[in-house]
């Protein structure tokens, strides 16, 4: 996606080919969501378990007066479970009026990514369809999540 912004000194529209992403780590891999979809990031102090839900649903938490489900990304990606630490973060994102918190091992960065470095994932390695695009930066690789897939198909 390309954002059009006003140049500071004129009324003409210029192309800004970068987007802000919130980057978080799960099992030493960098994942990201567009910052525009992210409502907030919080440390994780435990969730209230909800009986009868999918195994990757940690439960529900109340964040700024809102009750949202927590999806444990490790379990969602089929990785070994790990007890949350002080570093654990929930990234609360919203899409189609659904707000869901994603539990990551850490989350501490907001990165501006040039649009041309965002590429579709190779067909055979899309992590169960959870990865929407792959960002190749000179020094690192970031997997941009398909939020709707991550929180869908229970």
């Amino acid at each position, binding site marked *: 996606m390309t954002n059009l912004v006003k140049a500071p000194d004129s009324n003409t529209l210029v192309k800004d080919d970068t987007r802000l992403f919130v980057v978080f780590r799960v099992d030493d891999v960098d994942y990201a969501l567009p910052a525009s979809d992210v409502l907030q990031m919080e440390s994780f102090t435990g*969730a*209230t*378990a*909800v*009986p*009868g*839900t*999918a195994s990757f*649903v940690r*439960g*529900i*938490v*109340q964040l*700024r*007066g*809102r*009750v*949202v*489900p927590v*999806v444990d990304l490790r379990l969602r990606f089929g990785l070994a479970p790990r007890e949350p630490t002080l570093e654990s973060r929930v990234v609360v994102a919203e899409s189609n*009026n*659904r707000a*869901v918190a994603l539990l990551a091992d850490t989350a501490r960065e907001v990165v501006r990514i040039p649009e041309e470095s965002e590429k579709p994932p190779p067909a055979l390695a899309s992590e169960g369809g959870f990865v929407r695009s792959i960002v190749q930066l000179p020094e690192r690789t970031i997997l941009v999540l398909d939020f709707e897939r991550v*929180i*869908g198909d*229970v």
Partner: protein
Amino acid sequence: MNVDLEEFRTAFVAEADEHLAAAQSLLLAMDRTLKERSGDGVQRELRELLRLLHTVKGLSAMVGVEPIVSLSHEMESVLRTAERGGGIVDEPTIEALLEGTRAIQSRVRAVAENRPVPAPAADLLAALRRLEPPAPASLGEIKITDEVAAKLGASEREQLRSGARAGRRALRVDFMPSASQAAAGVSITTIRERISTLGEIVKVVPLSPAGGLVFALVVLTNATNEQITEATGIEAVTELMAPSAPVPATFEPEVEKEEEATTEGARGVLRVDVGRVDAAIELLGTLVVTRSRMALAVDRLEKAGADTRELRAIMTDHARQLREVRSAILRVRMVPMTAVVERLPLVVRGLARTNRKKVRVLVDVASAELDKTVAERLFPALVHLVRNCIDHGVELPADRVKAGKSEEAVLRLEGTTRDRMVELRISDDGRGVDRAAVAARAGKPVPATDAELLDLLCRPGLSTRAEADTTSGRGLGMDIVRKVVQRLGGELTLETTAGQGTTFRVRVPLTVAIVDAFTVRSGGERFAVPVPIVEEIVELASERVVNGPSARLLARRGETVPLFNLAQALSLPNRSEPPQALVVRGSGGELVAYAVDRVLGQQEIVVRPLTDTLVASGAISGSTDLGDGRVTVVLDLLALRAA
């Protein structure tokens, strides 16, 4: 009305309306005549009125609406008496006749809407009858019909009687002190003061009904209930005496009781006890349970190979209709936001005066509505936010001028509705919150964002007052305000700019479901279970439990009740042998017991639906905050069994 008269209904309504309108304008004309040239007869008008009412009576008799027949009959008698008495009528007579026409009008509307037509109110009929022989001198015995009567001495009773004979009304005004009223500066003393401007306080009787304190003020007054409510904010105003004596114009206007006529006279307003609406919602709940059983039955049919397409389509319609009925019932509970906000300017005025500040209040809540329960719970929080703006935000007039602002501050109260949430904004154009001062008080670094600033402000016990003032230390803290908002499932936010002002934004759901619930612990988790479905809590140690081959059974009072471990039923890690059980009665009357580790307590909870597909489940009716900031799951044990 008979079915074969159905076709006359429209004609009847139209004609009766016309006659009644004419009768009312005649009565109003008579009233003017009376005031301008008292003593003049109104023979001509009386005869015209007689003709109109006689026609209405005839029409009503024809379509068989007995209540209107008897009302117009009584009114006719009054008119005949007045006509024979030289065409002289007095104000109470005109008042009673107007009341009569309004009572007839509301019944005509009932006919128009095909509703049952209520019988005429007894006190209106009595008032009309009393007018027939003009002003009898004898006084009937006045009965004091109230529990406070027992607390009145002989001299006080006599005081009431003589007051009533002098045409004053004996009322009971119930003042219930509460934290919110204390926060608004309202106490029994201020209530006493306000009432004494309207009448004579005979006695103040403190009563203590279950879980509270009520001051019943016994008052003699010429004021109407509305005037008293307006002056005190108290709606619990009741007539203390059964008026059996001819006390002119002391009957309550009948339309007020059953149906407030709107100015357009179109549909009217219905006053309903909230309990009745709640009962309807509860019944709807049982309907929803029945529906889930129906859905399971359809599933089984389908598995058995039946063609269920038509059934499925009906079920879909049925689900939609259930939702519609639910929202229709919930709409009955809605009150206009103006009703909530309109009391705030009064609070502002008092606060501004004690603080020597000048504040203008601008209210814009348009036509937004919210649930009565939400409104009641939110009001104290709003009072506190308003207080906060005036105490801390708004500067003294001189300081405002120095800062280049107008002497008079502006406090805005705005409300809008969006996405099933109502948003209320309380904003001032004052000095803004002093971040550094708040941080210093809290012993924390200066917050970077407004959200962090609010977190600091909401630390229990934090006071940011720079100087001691008269209102300090009263009311709620910001932490309580935020808790109130959050328990309603809402959100409190803050925006503040140094020198420009502060805006508090409160977002709460339009409606909430509030129930009494048991909190229980099971399988290491805490749950809430609505009280109404729980028949009994039993100690398993003192009961006879039989380990049957497929289920455990609880033998009690001749009944055998299946006993399940709640933790197991919910597939939770099940660590212990639970010592207690909740016995639940299903809609079909059958009992089931769920064993739990511990019943922790009982409290009122606000149930917030859990709708996200990741966590929605039949056995869960929602989530709640028990007051500790953590989420607790509210179980629907009836649905758990069906599932």
